[in-house]
């Protein structure tokens, strides 16, 4: 029996069919995602066509949403989406970054792991459960205790004027903050754990206090934390069911946190199934298009922010 000589590559490795196939299949899979997104954008734009033609730019500045007279203006919903998401982020960010710092730096390792696991479980809770919690648990708390207190002590601010009904913008902001908290905490914690320990040790060795060393770590982790913020904001912008249940579904635009409001996703969820008028359905699809554009815009701005804060360098932690 003769042994076949080893087939060494001559000059360049010959392309093996299996490898080529593998690569092309994976490339097709990646392209599929892009194709699906393109199809979504195309179909949404097509569905929104009649409304785009009829209302033009007035759609984004109009405040009246009247399916009977067919006057549609989406400004209250854009306002509601932006205000609820940004306020929820502002409410959630400080405690969550603090929690992430605690879990990564200060807690005993096993305690930190256990708590991190529990917090990640929170992210798995379905959003409708958060909605029910907001309606049956948070609303009575707000109605009985928190909102009357706010009205009594801070009622001179236009932010806290109105009746304490328990549902409205404030309830939605709190529910959204609780929903995005696990995202921010778990990603920030991962990023903080991934920062090289050498940096911390070097800072301490140079005489920094513990909190100054913490500051150094946070500065390095900043792009990653911003990535967590982008994801959290994305979730808050798109959140539908939980917000629909607690925000009051009124297209009144008010500076008061106690007044009911509505978001773009809540109005689509509420009205699309029964929107038999062609212009009504088209207006709702146009809202979806606006929401999509808003999400893309917010993401782009956030990525630019990440780019600038890292001084133009591409940090691996930024790819959160």
């Amino acid at each position, binding site marked *: 029996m003769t042994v076949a000589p080893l087939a060494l590559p001559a000059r360049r490795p010959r392309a093996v069919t299996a490898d080529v196939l593998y690569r092309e299949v994976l490339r097709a899979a990646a392209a599929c995602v892009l194709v699906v997104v393109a199809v979504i954008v195309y179909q949404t734009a097509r569905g929104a066509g009649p409304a785009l033609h009829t209302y033009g730019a007035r759609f984004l500045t109009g405040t*009246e*949403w*009247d*399916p*009977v*007279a067919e006057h549609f203006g989406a400004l209250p919903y854009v306002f509601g989406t932006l205000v609820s998401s940004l306020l929820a982020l502002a409410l959630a960010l400080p405690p969550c970054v603090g929690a992430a710092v605690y879990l990564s730096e200060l807690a005993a390792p096993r305690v930190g792991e256990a708590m991190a696991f529990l917090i990640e479980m929170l992210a798995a809770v379905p959003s409708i459960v958060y909605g029910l919690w907001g*309606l*049956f648990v948070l*609303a*009575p708390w707000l*109605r009985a205790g928190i909102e009357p207190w706010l009205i009594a002590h801070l009622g001179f601010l236009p932010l806290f004027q109105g*009746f304490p*009904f*328990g*549902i*409205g913008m404030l309830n939605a902001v709190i529910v959204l903050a609780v929903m995005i908290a696990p995202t921010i905490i778990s990603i920030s914690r991962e990023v903080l754990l991934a920062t090289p320990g050498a940096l911390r040790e070097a800072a301490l060795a140079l005489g920094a206090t513990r909190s100054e060393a913490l500051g150094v770590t946070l500065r390095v982790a900043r792009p990653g934390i911003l990535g967590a913020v982008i994801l959290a904001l994305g979730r808050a912008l798109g959140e539908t069911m939980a917000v*629909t*249940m607690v925000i*009051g*579904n*009124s*297209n*009144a635009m008010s500076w008061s946190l106690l007044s*009911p409001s*509505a978001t773009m996703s*809540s109005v689509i*969820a*509420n*009205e699309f*199934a*029964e*929107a*038999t008028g062609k212009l*009504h359905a088209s207006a709702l699809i146009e809202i979806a298009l606006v929401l999509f554009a808003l999400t893309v815009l917010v993401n782009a701005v956030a990525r630019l922010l990440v780019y600038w804060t890292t001084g133009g360098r591409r940090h691996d932690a930024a790819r959160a």
Partner: protein
Amino acid sequence: MPTRTSIMRGTRAAIALALALATGAATASAQSLTGAGATFPYPIYSKWFDSYRQKTGVEINYQSIGSGGGIQQVKAGTVDFGASDAALSDVQLKDMPRRIVHIPTVAGAVVLAYNLPGFDAKLKLTPELVTAIYLGKITTWNDKRLAAANPGASMPAAPILAVHRSDGSGTTNIFTTYLARVSGEWKQLVGAATSVSWPSGVGGKGNEGVAGLVRQTPGAIGYIELAYAKQNQLPYAQLRNHAGNFVEPTLASITAAVAGAAPLLAKDVRSPIADSPAADAYPISGLTFLLVYQEQKDPAKGKALVEFLHWAMHDGQEMAAALDYARLPEAIVAVNEKTLAGVSVGGKAGK
């Protein structure tokens, strides 16, 4: 030992035989119909379909996807009949491929449920008060106008939260039709439809959402279907009707409302029965309809559908009260019989 080829051939033959038997069995068994639409009458419809299947073997499959969905599906021809709480407008009828007839099946009422802790009496409301509350003109429970309609009762000084439906629905259609009839201001400002622009208040999704908000919020008032108010044990208001009497929403007063509107319904069965003139009628009542093509293309299905509808007009009505639906008065059953006589099944008029 059988070869691989012969096993494959045998398996293919067995599958083909099984399919042939299955399809043969399907055509040999009883007729089956499909319908889709309104959620409000779903409980009574599912009882009807179940009883009818036990009686005749005809299988009727119903998807409660909402009135709007029902209208779209019957237009597309994917279902044999549609169900809608709101009758089709002239524009919508023109949009249909062929002529559609409306068959009212049962009647329901929209009641004003409220949450007033400490108020034990029965709340009395007039059409002007309801309109003013929903227009945002009356904002507290101890308003003089409310006290005038409820003499002797002490109303708390709480703010009113007017709850409406955030999603499009037949319930909203019935309620706003009523408000548009009793208030010219409402008709001009807001109008009547399954989805309107509410001047004030908060919205809940579905009858359950509104009932939940009313139950949770002291000082809330909301409009929901009678069945929901009863099941959630929410107190609901008596309303002053067209004849000037304060009427409690009961199955009898709903049937009276339908009977009171019988002359109008005989002319056009889509006429709204809100604010009915009868003395003991509950003013916010509405019929729910089945939408059927006047020309049934498929003779077997058409015949089965017409027979079912006849049954629903007589035996089916007996089951309505147990499920909190108001049965149709005899006058309307007669109108329906006339309509059904005009339905042609494969070229022949139905019995």
